[in-house]
């Protein structure tokens, strides 16, 4: 266990170095958040059709999304990709660690460090200047925190599938880009999921992506009662088990057919 812990720690500290990029990212996210809010409020307030979420709920939902923007994988760990492409992945196999666990620990840091770096200032700015609200209640806040933890573990399991798939498609950037975009769209970060057509709701809820952003956000904004967290955690747990199992299977297959490139 200590091996995995140090892997994660080292990776985390490396990623914390990119502060200038974080400032630029913060600026972009604020800009996008403001534009999104202006567009969606124009729709909500100019139409007679009833809105499934109130204006303040929508605004808070958008800012949560902008703050946690880095949580969902839409790229992959560049280092692992290089390892696979260059053939150095052979060294990874020699380590006395379980490969899946080792890469998972790396991925966990890969997702947490930038998220922490971005989310704290984003939330502060959004709350002070742009109308983001605190959680509906103390219970809602606690439920949100729990669901977010589940979301983190889930998003890493999702990311692992993308990483491992690199073993098959050495130049799979197109596919990864596509999967990333679909995942983004179905998670609610582009357009809040409650605003999707009603018939699409069950489909979106069945997919794992909505458990990353949409479900925790609904708890935070009070669109779902705090006790719904139990169901959400169960859903996340099932998806994590499925994805980890599938990921391990894929990795085992990949290692068997792995051709070490270069020489």
């Amino acid at each position: 266990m200590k091996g995995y812990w140090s892997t994660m720690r080292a990776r985390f500290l490396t990623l914390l170095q990119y502060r200038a990029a974080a400032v630029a990212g913060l600026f972009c996210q604020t800009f996008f958040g403001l534009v999104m809010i202006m567009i969606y409020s124009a729709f909500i307030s100019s139409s007679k059709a009833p809105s499934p979420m109130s204006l303040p709920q929508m605004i808070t939902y958008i800012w949560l999304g902008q703050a946690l923007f880095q949580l969902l994988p839409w790229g992959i760990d560049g280092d692992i990709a290089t390892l696979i492409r260059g053939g150095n992945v052979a060294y990874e196999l020699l380590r006395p660690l379980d490969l899946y666990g080792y890469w998972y620990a790396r991925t966990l840091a890969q997702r947490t460090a930038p998220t922490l770096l971005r989310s704290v200032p984003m939330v502060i700015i959004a709350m002070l200047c742009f109308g983001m609200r605190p959680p509906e209640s103390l219970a809602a806040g606690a439920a949100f925190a729990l669901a977010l933890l589940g979301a983190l573990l889930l998003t890493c399991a999702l990311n692992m599938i993308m990483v491992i798939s690199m073993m098959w498609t050495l130049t799979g950037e197109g596919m990864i880009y596509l999967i990333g975009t679909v995942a983004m769209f179905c998670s609610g970060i582009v357009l809040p999921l409650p605003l999707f057509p009603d018939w699409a709701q069950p489909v979106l809820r069945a997919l794992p992506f909505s458990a990353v952003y949409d479900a925790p956000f609904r708890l935070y904004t009070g669109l779902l009662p705090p006790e719904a967290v139990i169901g959400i955690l169960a859903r996340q747990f099932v998806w994590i088990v499925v994805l980890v199992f599938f990921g391990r299977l894929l990795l085992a297959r990949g290692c068997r057919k792995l051709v070490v490139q270069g020489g």
Partner: protein
Amino acid sequence: MNSFRLYYRYLAISIRGQMQYRASFLTQTLGTLAATGIEFLSIWALFHRFGTLHGWTLPEVALMYGMVNVAFSLTDAMSRGFDAFGRMVRTGDFDRLLLRPRSTVLQLAGQELTMRRIGRFSQGIVVLIWAMHQLQMSWSFLQIGLLVAATLGGACFFFGLIVLQATTAFWTVESLEMFNAFTYGGVYASQYPMTIYRGWFRRLMTYVIPLATVTYFPALAILGRPDPLGTRLLFQCLSPLIGVAFLLIAFQVWKIGVRHYCSTGS
């Protein structure tokens, strides 16, 4: 050899290079095609739920969506050289470009014509044609002309923005990521009528990053809609020229940057 022939040669080389990896090209193009398609899906979903937006319908917004996306994809394909520009300044590679007896902008634009951008381009064209069909108006020669002019004006604007972004590297040795907010954020925001935005944002989109002049104002003239903001028809028809003016200004700033440049020497 004149500049256009040289540029044409650059493109031919770049395309031939990319076609060496045909499968990779295909998946990347499909990737961008689907990704931009999804963008449009979210506009559709909003209209599906709310019906209209300040009196605008889906085909009208789709027209602006098509205009700005086609315009952006035209220049986005040429921007690869400018994206890498910060690195060229850091390593001193820019010196080599300066030694050649051709304009630096031409050489940078000729670095690569990123073929997978055809994904966004074709998706924009499809939405544009769909919108033109759905609007059920009789298209006059003038309207089509204005549509083309606005799209080209938009392409000029985006090219100017890319040049400006690269220019900042002369001072910061790193091209500023913040410009992404204006490029991608601009594409996103200019798909909707300006009336839905707050005053400060409208002014930003008209005077600072003048995207409204290549989408919203010409679209009003094309659709024959009165403008709640009170602009005249003549202004709406001529406003795409502001995109061209923006590009010319960007070139001037670039020249100042080149004069200011002193090599890192490494």
